């Protein structure tokens, strides 16, 4: 071979630690001196509910018929202290997502779908909009460290109050909304100048710690004459301790949000590296409630990457009373879809994705406010791409599907009530899942760390 020969074979040996993603990350940091901010939840591979499977009926257990034999999905939340607990038709609720991160049309779509299906929506870190209160029959009103828009009239109008300590995407962090989404209306609700980047507190302004939380919860009870359930939401970290403390502080319902939980905007390093998987958190939360003999007295809602009927069924089998869904709901509305439906026609959304430097299916640019399908935006043009009626119909279909799958699985396990699903109906496919959920590896009696092989 002479030195002019350009047909040398190319040998590519990629580094595991310094892969192309890592190289791009370092280069980006070197270029800008800033961390990456994005939306959605953890994208890395994590142990999740796919690693658990159900033991359906056969000879030792008998199934229920799909149509003639009923399987109840009614769910009651907040029985501990409140005079008016929340009664839902299905154990699937819609998680807190703010007006500000989402458009008003979306909030209305969420409310309509939830009302039709018989479940609740949750306000999010931005206050209560008229659209959501009017469209949503059961509305959970969040009280967050920022207290954006928080006021006693809305507390009185709400059906339940959710005291948010943190969320799964960023436990220990506060909210974030970049200037392009701080529209005049959002700015007014949050008492901010329009167009500026919102900085958010990560701690509540008037209480720190469960002993003071107990007093704060009492304040909300006194304000609402003890009528409304008080939920306490934590991002999953030291979940066993946190759930115990939430119960001690007086929570009627505890909401645990695992690291797969989404956000509209936060630092990527937070999303991917802080918090524990939902699968591990559920088990810890249930352990805490059992330890205090509070199962059934304080209800548990689990969120963070709940996507499908089987996910719902597995969360319930693990001991949750209900689940809450955020990202799945947005995807049902059209997030990451290549088209949107407006004025009775489908329109191609690819250009919008391309402008963000992405393609449908890979987008996580909620923070930009330029959502190509009009969901996580305040832009007057873009938000028309999501019609409340159309969005509501799609969401209703999604929730119905989840519920149908839930009851199918429950019946196959012989249950007349989805709340009778139990963890002994489950086995694990991987060591991590078996250890985290403390459920045996399929085909064995082995729970790593608990029983012998």
């Amino acid at each position, binding site marked *: 071979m002479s030195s002019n020969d350009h047909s040398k074979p190319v040998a590519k040996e990629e580094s595991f630690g310094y892969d192309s993603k890592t190289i791009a990350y370092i280069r980006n940091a070197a270029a800008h001196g800033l961390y990456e901010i994005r939306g959605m939840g953890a994208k890395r591979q994590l142990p999740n509910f796919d690693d658990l499977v159900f033991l359906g009926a056969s000879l030792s257990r008998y199934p229920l018929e799909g149509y003639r034999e009923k399987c109840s999905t009614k769910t009651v939340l907040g029985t501990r202290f409140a005079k008016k607990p929340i009664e839902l038709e299905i154990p699937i609720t819609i998680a807190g997502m703010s007006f500000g991160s989402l458009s008003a049309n979306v909030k209305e779509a969420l409310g309509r779908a939830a009302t039709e299906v018989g479940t609740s929506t949750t306000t999010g870190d931005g206050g209560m909009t008229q659209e959501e209160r009017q469209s949503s029959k059961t509305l959970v009103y969040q009280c967050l460290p920022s207290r954006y828009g928080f006021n006693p009239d809305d507390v009185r109008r709400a059906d339940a109050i959710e005291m948010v300590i943190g969320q799964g995407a960023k436990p220990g962090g506060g909210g974030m909304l970049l200037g392009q989404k701080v529209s005049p209306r959002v700015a007014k609700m949050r008492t901010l100048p329009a167009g500026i980047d919102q900085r958010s507190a990560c*701690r509540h302004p008037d209480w720190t*710690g*469960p*002993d003071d939380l*107990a007093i704060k919860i009492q304040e909300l009870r006194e304000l609402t004459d003890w009528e409304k359930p008080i939920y306490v939401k934590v991002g999953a970290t030291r979940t066993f301790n946190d759930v*115990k403390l939430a119960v*001690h502080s007086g929570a009627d319902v505890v909401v645990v949000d695992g690291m797969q939980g989404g956000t509209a905007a936060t630092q990527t390093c937070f999303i991917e590296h802080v918090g524990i998987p939902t699968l591990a958190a559920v088990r810890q939360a249930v352990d805490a409630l059992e330890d205090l003999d509070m199962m059934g007295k304080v209800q548990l809602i689990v969120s963070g990457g709940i996507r499908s009927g089987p996910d719902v069924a597995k969360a319930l089998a693990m001991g949750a009373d209900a689940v809450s869904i955020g990202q799945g709901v947005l995807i049902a509305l059209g997030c990451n879809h290549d088209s949107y439906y407006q004025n009775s026609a489908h329109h191609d959304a690819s250009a919008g994705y391309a402008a963000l430097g992405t393609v449908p299916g890979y987008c996580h640019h909620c923070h930009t406010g330029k959502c190509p399908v009009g969901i996580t935006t305040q832009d007057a043009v873009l938000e028309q791409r999501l019609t409340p009626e159309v969005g509501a119909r799609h969401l209703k279909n999604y929730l119905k599907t989840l519920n149908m799958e839930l009851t199918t699985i429950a019946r196959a396990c012989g249950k007349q009530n989805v709340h009778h699903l139990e963890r002994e109906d489950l086995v694990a496919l991987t060591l991590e899942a078996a250890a985290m959920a403390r459920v045996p590896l399929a085909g064995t009696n082995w729970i790593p760390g608990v029983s012998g092989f």
Partner: protein
Amino acid sequence: MCGIVGLLVKKPALRSRLGELMVPMLIGMTERGPDSAGLAVFTEPLAENMRKISLYSGMCEEGADFNWLGLGHELKEHLGIDATITAQGNHAILTAAIAPEPVKRWIKERHPKLHILSTGRAIDLYKDIGTPAEVAARYAFSGLAGSHLVGHTRMATESAVTPDRAHPFTAGEDFCLVHNGSLSNPYGVRRMLEPHGIRFETDNDTEAACRFLEWRLREGDDLETALQKGFEALDGFYTFLMGTADKLALIRDPFACKPAVVAETDDYVAIASEFRSLAHLPDIKHARVFEPAPEEMYVWNA
């Protein structure tokens, strides 16, 4: 997760009423700490060659039926010690003319589940699971006498059958500490102390703070210097209330998120997490009531 109380009487005539004045304070902190309660009282010090050791049998099988009399006999037989043991159910105070460390070692070997609560010439320490009212009744707190005391009510995270994790924590002799808050670097502090031969009994963050401060005092720092070093070494949120044989000391971290209020008259200084606990003290309407500032040391002499 907790309530703290402290009381120091300025007039010797009030020493016999110390417990009686404190019990409503402790009960006032029940909502902050419903699971367990503890208290350390500082009495007239024993003679220099004497020591008293507070003991807790709640984690032994015999529990409140522990054979305290038998323990006294064993001490006589094995170590030649004439000890006076005053017992109330699962708690006892052992008084003798001893060097305490060998006796404590012997107790740990012989009765590993017998928990040593405190050692010193002035300190008596009680802690147990139950509501503050239950614990106060169990040990007849209203009858306690002394110059000052430090008390605590706890909202437990882990299972309540570990009364050893209740506060006050002690280290060395005549030193104890109660804590409201949460330290964020307790394990680093422990790992720094362990090479100095300091042994930990629990994984409680308060124990890390307690042993750190006691270590500084033992190394010759005066209380103020030890507390100053504490500000640097200990991270997180805290209100600490400490008792030594002749002092009561209070500090709050720079963020001062955990509450504390002080009421002072000519007769007493009282400290609590909330004013509620102070509301029934005599002459409270004319007391000087104030909130201690963050990062400042408040020291009262008994």
